[in-house]
């Protein structure tokens, strides 16, 4: 019997699968968050140069990594939706956007909290900070465009095109900002991660995994809501036990 690879690309089947996967992602994310925070704030030693302040890194770095990856994943799903006209891909892209925006906001915020004791300023026009800010703008643009088009199909396609244009632009923006930065000011203090203590590394990886799992859980539950909203006129939705009751 041939395996149907596309079985879960239909909202009908994916809705149930996502419902089954969410608790696993959520629980393992909670466990890893607890473990990562314990490792980061209790086990890992204080940094030689930055003292205790560096510990915000355990939240800052994973959120920053996630914000960038989620944009690429979002653009990937959006492109799939645009090319193959699969409803679910577009729904996934829509579901990822708020989480991505949240992570880039968190990265900026924790960056500011880190910057104040380290650089003496809440905000430095550093290349990374600036490109993270622009990334947040790109997320907001995607969400705003999607929200202001009433027809969901047109909204999906228009936002998908924007996400693709944005992802082509991201490297250009990144390098231009980096170059602009080096022309305008000397290099700011950067955390040299080359000789990180092993406990720090472990805490960081655990937190990174926790963030990934959190993102997966949240995105899947959001995509379930979107499926319910968009397919509310279909028969199978009205036969779901949670809809009937």
């Amino acid at each position, binding site marked *: 019997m041939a395996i149907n690879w596309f079985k879960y690309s239909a909202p009908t089947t994916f809705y149930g699968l996502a419902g089954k996967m969410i608790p696993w992602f959520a629980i393992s994310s909670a466990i890893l968050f607890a473990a990562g925070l314990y490792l980061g704030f209790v086990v890992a030693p204080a940094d030689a140069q930055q003292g205790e302040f560096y510990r915000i890194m355990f939240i800052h770095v994973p959120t920053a990594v996630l914000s960038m990856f989620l944009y690429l994943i979002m653009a990937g799903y959006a492109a799939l939706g645009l090319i193959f006209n699969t409803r679910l891909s577009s729904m996934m892209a829509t579901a990822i956007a708020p989480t991505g925006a949240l992570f880039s906001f968190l990265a900026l915020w924790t960056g500011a909290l880190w910057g104040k004791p380290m650089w003496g300023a809440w905000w430095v026009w550093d290349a990374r900070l600036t490109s993270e800010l622009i990334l947040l703008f790109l997320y*907001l643009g995607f969400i*705003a*465009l999607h929200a*202001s088009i009433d027809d969901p199909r047109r909204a999906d396609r*228009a936002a998908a*095109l924007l996400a693709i244009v944005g992802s082509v632009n991201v490297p250009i923006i990144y390098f*231009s*900002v980096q*170059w602009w930065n080096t022309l*305008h000011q000397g290099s700011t203090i950067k955390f040299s991660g080359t000789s990180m203590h092993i406990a720090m590394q472990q805490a960081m990886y655990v937190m990174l995994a926790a963030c990934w799992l959190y993102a997966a859980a949240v995105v899947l539950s959001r995509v379930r809501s979107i499926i319910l909203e968009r397919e509310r006129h279909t028969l199978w939705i009205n036969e779901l036990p949670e809809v009937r009751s």
Partner: protein
Amino acid sequence: MKKSTLFGLLVLVIRRDLVLAMRRRADVLTTLIFFVMVVSLFPLGVGPEMDMLRKMAAGVLWVAALLSSMLSLGRLFSADYLDGTLEQMMLAPQSLSMLVLGKMTAHWMVSGLPLVLMAPVLGLQFDMPVQSLGVLIVGLLLGTPVLSMVGAIGAALTLGLRGGGVLLSLLVLPLCIPVLIFGAGAVDAVSSGLSAASHLSLLGALLLLALVFTPWVTAQALRISME
């Protein structure tokens, strides 16, 4: 209908849009006046010290150019959309990308070129040295077409939406940041005694990239918006 070549088509669209723009000169002037006003507001806001103004001049002029090009973008497709011309253009056997390129070019000639011509006068208000003025003009000449072309993508995506103007700026401004950086950077490089060649080359590269990709992307965006 006479079968026109691709280039003939381009000229035809540009000429048509220019004629339309010349019939409504107020629109063209409003953008230009906005540009002049925004630039003139900066000395009032930050104080009249010439040293500071000279340093700021390039950035202020570039940001003002960016903002005023956003203002006129909403009109790029909306009139044609409302009276059904756009639909006819999409039905036409000729390439939509070429038509779009023509519209972009006309838009730049109407909204970008006047800014480029006006910029040196405003630069003098900020006491910019002649050398910097020259680089500013070259930079604007290379950069403002990119603004029109990238902006056209946003204009096509937001076609016929409520609150389209603000949304358009929200979408397009982040994408235009590289142009701003290299444009203002070129002037900064000259005023600090370096060569502006690298910045201008990069602006030129952006222009070429935009020239290749944006007409096609805009055409796709129009198809999405019009279906």
